[in-house]
């Protein structure tokens, strides 16, 4: 075989797609959820006859939640397994670390959850073979800041971020910019580190401040504990957040009574009555015995998304697939209709969801 090259082609009777996910290590939960969603989509597609008349053959590998292993896995997938596309990793850092390896081999790399603004573009412009199907951090942060100032009439906000998490920090940054541009003030910026369970110290500190809302962009594991502990301490102000809140576990951790006055931005609502969403939730429950969370849903969409691109490319050729990906228009995902822009980011609408006694309802829908 020749190194570098002109992309990979699947010539056999299957189409190989690589999955490079965090299946062990610190963020295995995100990686495994994404993988489960993708594999469910592939199963459905294969059951319906596959793509271009060929079955999809997923090649799943673990990167141990380490960026260097992620690089190594993608390199292995594109060079040894000759996959025509690599899905994942789930987190921005690891995903970024794989892009040069995929690009060198001219194979597209797509993540459904690497939200950092700069994963697909850097100062040299757009990265040719990198795509993502989730919101930019900036979009969520800005939307929520506007929601806070305009809908909730908040003027003073406290920001509480997960300091070890670039997603959390990314959202917080854009929230702060927009919120202050809207005339609001940030009373305090506090932080914690993921994997903690006790947030009483920082919440006690916040309790003593004068503010209207708390912006808490983080994942449901911590969010559940924080909201619960905050309500226990007697903080009843609104909590605002992002798509990391979307999980059936949130209500179990925080308890329904704590989940009032909570708003978050999301791709869709899992309580949506849209037939496609309902069908997905039901199929998922049947297959895995639990309710899907955001990573499952985004992964599931990613599975269909890549299949769609291959179909449109007309050939399982990685370069052509990349071209097809760039052309994506109004792809009907369950997490919202999306198109790919010139920066290889998705253009899709954002939904603001309110929790009342833990039950979701759509508060606002914002078009891009």
């Amino acid at each position, binding site marked *: 075989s020749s*190194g570098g090259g002109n992309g990979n082609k699947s010539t056999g009777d299957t189409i190989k797609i690589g999955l490079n996910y965090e299946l062990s290590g*610190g963020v295995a939960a995100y990686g495994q959820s994404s993988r489960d969603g993708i594999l469910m989509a592939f199963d459905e597609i294969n059951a319906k006859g596959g793509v271009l008349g060929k079955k999809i053959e997923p090649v799943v590998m673990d990167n141990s939640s380490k960026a260097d292993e992620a690089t*190594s896995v993608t390199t292995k997938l594109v*060079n*040894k397994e000759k996959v025509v596309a690599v899905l994942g990793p789930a987190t921005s850092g690891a995903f970024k*670390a794989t892009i040069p390896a995929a690009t060198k081999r001219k194979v597209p790399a797509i993540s459904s959850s690497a939200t950092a603004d700069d994963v697909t573009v850097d100062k040299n412009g757009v990265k040719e073979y990198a795509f993502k199907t989730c919101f930019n951090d900036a979009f969520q942060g800005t939307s929520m800041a506007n929601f806070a100032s305009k809908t909730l009439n908040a003027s003073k906000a406290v920001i509480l971020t997960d300091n070890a*998490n670039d997603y959390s920090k990314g959202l917080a940054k854009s929230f702060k910019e927009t919120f202050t541009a809207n005339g609001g003030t940030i009373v305090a910026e506090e932080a914690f580190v993921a994997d903690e369970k006790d947030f009483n110290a920082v919440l006690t500190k916040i309790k003593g401040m004068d503010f209207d809302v708390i912006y808490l962009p983080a994942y449901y594991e911590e969010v559940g504990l924080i909201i619960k502990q905050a309500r226990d301490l007697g903080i009843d102000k609104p909590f605002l957040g992002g798509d990391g809140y979307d999980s059936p576990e949130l209500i179990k951790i925080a308890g329904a009574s704590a989940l009032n006055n909570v708003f978050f931005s999301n791709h869709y609502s899992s309580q949506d009555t849209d037939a496609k969403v309902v069908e997905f939730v039901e199929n998922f429950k049947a297959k895995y015995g639990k309710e899907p969370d955001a990573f499952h849903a985004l992964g599931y969409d990613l599975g269909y998304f890549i299949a769609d691109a291959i179909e449109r490319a007309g050939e399982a050729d990685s370069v052509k697939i990349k071209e097809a990906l760039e052309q994506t228009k109004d792809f009907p995902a369950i997490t919202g209709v999306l198109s790919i822009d010139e920066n290889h980011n998705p253009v899709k609408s954002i939904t603001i969801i309110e929790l009342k006694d833990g039950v979701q309802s759509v508060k606002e829908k914002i078009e891009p």
Partner: protein
Amino acid sequence: MNNILKAKNLKALIGIILIYVIVQALIMVGIVDDYYQILLVMICLNIILSVSLNLITGFTGQFSLGHAGFMAIGAYVCGYITVTVEQEFSFLIGIFAGAIAAALVGILIGIPTLRLKGDYLAIATLGMAEIIRIIILNVEAVGGASGLSIPQYANWTWVYIFTVATIVLIKNFINSTHGRACISIREDEIASEAMGINTTRYKVIAFAIGAFFAGVAGALYSLYFYFIKPDQFGFMKSIDILVIVVLGGLGNIHGSIIASILLATISSYLQEYPELKMVIYALVLIVIMILKNKDMTKFKKFITEKILRRQTAV
């Protein structure tokens, strides 16, 4: 004595060049592709890390759980310099700056903490590495939690050169009077001091040299994997290095090299068994540790009984 040394050196030199030439040839014909190159680089970095930790823990007897901290300093100082200076070969300056920064921090932290013994030193070094990581996490100039991207300057050749240099330099050190001074501290600190050895000084020296090469490894890591993030240098990374050192044998440089190769190979095979990867890895680790301890005496007895007895029979 000198002649023997020279003959040995010559052989080693030929070996070093031969390995390089063979790998280079395999790269040219495409047998060693990008993936194997990454594997080779990982092995080399692990060799640098484990050999340098071996100097601290294996030879000098100072139980350190903070090697990843020094690696982080090397990686970040080098990464930052490479990104900001942006000139040809600025990365070489970066490597040395990173290594020296790591060594300086090693000295700074080593002087007060090296009075501690055994597990207490281990926990202090662990704390030190965590402090380093937390500080980096909060420095926005190097990207904080979202990490730092660096142009890929290092290639397999560079990494190989530095690996060989590390092994040769550390071996030379160990086989000098300074190295023997370090080893004597491991053997019996009180006796060592009574024999006229400034034990504090040598502990700090060993710590500084170990940190220096950990810094080199960190720098190369940043230059090869072009993306660094604080959580890559956490506590588990220190543990991973320690595992290699103990597996290969405390105070055994060849052991560290072999263990680096072995573990990298095992974990590359295991990438394909995502669900059970760590379970298998853990089991392999436990079993190797037990066998390593157990079979040695049996093995020795076997040799005396079967082989030595045969000798007497002849």
